[in-house]
């Protein structure tokens, strides 16, 4: 029951909206929770037990952290023992926190990563001719585990640092983890962002419902018209990589990048739109990433909630460890302020990117993907003063459109290359495809019709091009801070309805679904 399925759009969602509206105020969050579990069950069945375990464990550990603090504050402390007792109390809280994090991570590690770890461990055992190998491990993954585990960990850490209070309402916490629009592809919400709104039981409002629907139509357009149509070509190239080289592989990397963006951001639009209908503001996950100037800016605009999570719960904690602080001091003294700072922060940056790669999947190509960005961002940071010196000595205006154009082209090459490895079946296939760009390069591929033999016909390309233009135009308008929906709301009813009718018709007519199309999965739901 994906967000773009008829079952979700015309049965599940309307029924939940109706039940929500008819339910008494205090019962509404229970409607959402029940719907979320039905949604979960439709994908993962009895694997619901893992989600329930995560919910119960963070509920219990959150309350334990709070009661631990209450006990400490209510106890009387002799002045001479206060320091030692405080240290013991803090150590206990830390242990509780690590227990909570450990429980969440151990489920994720076992279910998602054990197969990969055992497989690689067996390669080592084989290499040293060890007589016995570990058994092959493969577990069924509950839907959304990579997303809700990060939400569960962020909840525990926020409770530990007292950014939020531990929630004694199990239902609210359960809904925070399992809210159905965010289950498949996130975004990774913080407890402080959504939990309260989810449970306030606000009645449906006409404006919220219509705005939510409009956002969903836009998401469906991106998913069905662009992503699913490109899927035909992308699958052909990446599933039989040995057949292609040069321009075809470049086209594969470029079009996969756009497919991924249209698929993921389209799904997020549907998620945010659904939340909006219930009066819940779900955080944005994209902010026109292709308008970025550098790789690090790109990642602040692409999958924003993952980047923010890694920054808050990986980058900062590592940066604040004694080891990194000492390293910073020593390296600043030895290499100067700029390089010293970059060197010490690179430890935390490494942690962020290796986890970013691993979070996406269990393959060496994902680790390579993370390291690729780590190296590029590190080099970018190291070279920044030199670039500044060179551009100012050459009197190049870094704000002029030519330089901006150069930055955009550079960024696009970086992103397309990264996505080539990300999408490749494995690291070796990725390397081979990358090599084949140079070894199999022939301009004739553009003119001899090769591109039209990969699953997309000329009308398909026209539809995709039309989709790009629409996405680009909307991006430019959003970049200028203009709310399109507010503008549309200001039009007269004839213009407004005509616009919406055309939008819906375009999705239905130009969408790549039904006979002749392979059902295209939501890409990030697989992570």
């Amino acid at each position: 029951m994906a967000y773009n399925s008829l079952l979700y759009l015309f049965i599940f969602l309307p029924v939940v909206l109706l039940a929500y509206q008819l339910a008494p105020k205090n019962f509404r969050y229970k409607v959402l929770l029940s719907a979320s579990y039905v949604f979960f069950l439709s994908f993962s069945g009895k694997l619901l037990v893992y989600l329930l375990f995560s919910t119960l464990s963070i509920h219990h550990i959150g309350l334990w952290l709070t009661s631990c603090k209450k006990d400490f504050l209510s106890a009387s402390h002799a002045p001479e023992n206060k320091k030692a007792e405080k240290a013991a109390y803090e150590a206990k809280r830390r242990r509780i926190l690590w227990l909570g994090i450990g429980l969440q991570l151990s489920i994720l590690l076992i279910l998602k990563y054990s197969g990969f770890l055992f497989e690689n461990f067996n390669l080592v055992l084989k290499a040293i001719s060890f007589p016995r190998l570990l058994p092959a491990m493969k577990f069924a993954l509950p839907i959304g585990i990579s997303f809700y585990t990060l939400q569960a960990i962020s909840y525990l850490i926020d409770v530990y640092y007292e950014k939020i209070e531990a929630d004694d309402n199990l239902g609210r916490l359960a809904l925070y983890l399992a809210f159905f629009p965010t289950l498949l592809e996130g975004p990774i919400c913080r407890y402080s962002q959504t939990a309260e709104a989810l449970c306030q039981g606000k009645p449906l409002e006409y404006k919220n419902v219509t705005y939510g629907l409009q956002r969903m139509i836009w998401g469906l357009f991106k998913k069905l018209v662009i992503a699913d149509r490109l899927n035909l070509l992308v699958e052909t190239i990446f599933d039989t990589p040995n057949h292609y080289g040069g321009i075809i592989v470049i086209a594969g990397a470029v079009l996969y990048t756009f497919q991924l963006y249209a698929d993921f951001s389209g799904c997020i639009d549907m998620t945010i739109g659904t939340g909006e209908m219930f009066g819940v503001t779900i955080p944005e996950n994209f902010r026109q990433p292709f308008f970025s100037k550098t790789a690090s800016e790109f990642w602040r605009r692409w999958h924003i909630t993952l980047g923010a999570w890694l920054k808050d719960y990986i980058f900062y904690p590592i940066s604040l460890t004694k080891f990194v602080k000492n390293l910073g001091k020593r390296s600043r003294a030895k290499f100067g302020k700029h390089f010293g700072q970059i060197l010490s922060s690179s430890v935390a940056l490494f942690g962020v990117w290796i986890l970013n790669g691993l979070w996406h999947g269990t393959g060496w190509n994902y680790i390579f993907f993370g390291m690729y960005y780590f190296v590029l961002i590190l080099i970018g940071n190291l070279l920044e003063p030199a670039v500044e010196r060179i551009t100012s000595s050459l009197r190049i205006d870094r704000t002029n459109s030519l330089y901006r154009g150069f930055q955009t082209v550079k960024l696009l090459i970086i992103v397309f290359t990264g996505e080539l490895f990300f999408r490749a079946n494995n690291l070796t296939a990725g390397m081979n495809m990358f090599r084949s760009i140079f070894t199999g390069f022939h301009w004739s591929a553009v003119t001899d019709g090769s591109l039209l033999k990969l699953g997309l016909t000329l009308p398909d390309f026209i539809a995709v091009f039309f989709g790009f233009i629409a996405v680009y135009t909307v991006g430019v308008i959003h970049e200028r801070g203009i709310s399109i929906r507010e503008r549309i709301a200001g039009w007269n009813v004839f213009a407004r309805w005509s616009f919406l009718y055309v939008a819906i018709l375009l999705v239905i007519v130009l969408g790549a679904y039904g006979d002749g199309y392979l059902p295209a999965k939501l890409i990030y739901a697989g992570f």
Partner: protein
Amino acid sequence: MKNKNRIKSISFLTGLFLLLYIASYLLIPYNNMGDSLYKKANGILKEPKNTIDYVAIGDSECSASISPMEVWNDYGYTGYNCGVPSQQLQDTYYLLERLLKNQHPKVVFLETNAFYRDFKYINTLETSIEETVKKIFPIYKYHDNWKYFHFYMLKALGHKIKQEQITVYKGYQYSAIVNPYKRGPYVTETDDVYVIDEQPLLYLNKIASLCKDKDIQLILYSAPSPKCWSYAKHNAAAAFANENQLTYIDLNLDIDTLGIDWAKDSRDDGDHLNYFGAKKVSDYMGNYLSEHADLTDHRKDDLFAGWNKELKNYLKLTEQN
């Protein structure tokens, strides 16, 4: 919601339904508009009534392994390949049920790979919703026809839709790409039996009883595929065939007789056959039909002249190899 908003919502939806209904008429096909207009499998619904001798059905292993034009060329039997990539047995059942309203084949070849593709009750619900929406708003079914839209189609509005035969090489998924399978022999005998899940088994039984009711010989077959096939799967299909007194042809155990050369006959590293592999399987199946089924050679029958015409196009396509 206030009354005013309710009226607005109802008016908007009424307008939308009307629009979708009208737009449907612009995209419903009224004639033959090109090779890939109806993607393969559904093309059988356009074949003249009771003209198909045998049907092959299943997932992509099916659509890539039997080319009805080859069988026609060598034996004169009319067949249709209704294989669809990733087809689930529930879809197989519904497609079979639909096509049997217009055709009465003597033999149905059911490829076994879909037996091992589990699906859930929710997929059944999703399929039935989709079928209903297609009936109410044909635009949902025919939306892809915008690619072939021409203003002359407007003239067809209000006219009876012509159901003309279309050319899709009778459903065969043609591919001449060669991507060899290099990992050596893959048939390792075992007593293990793959467990066919509840839902696929349910529809497998339904397909078997549908064929029985219609007096059609159901033959299970496994296309050569080192990537998808295993001995445990063979055992599961053989057990089902045995229980239901069906014939099971496992071509994976007969690779040498077929003459499959994995260096040349796969399009994707041993997952699917390419044209060269399909030619061998088609010859095998044609020969099987000639020996075991009571079918008539229609090559000289004027009623089937269209097949010879299509054969010319097919040979033009394949002779380039």
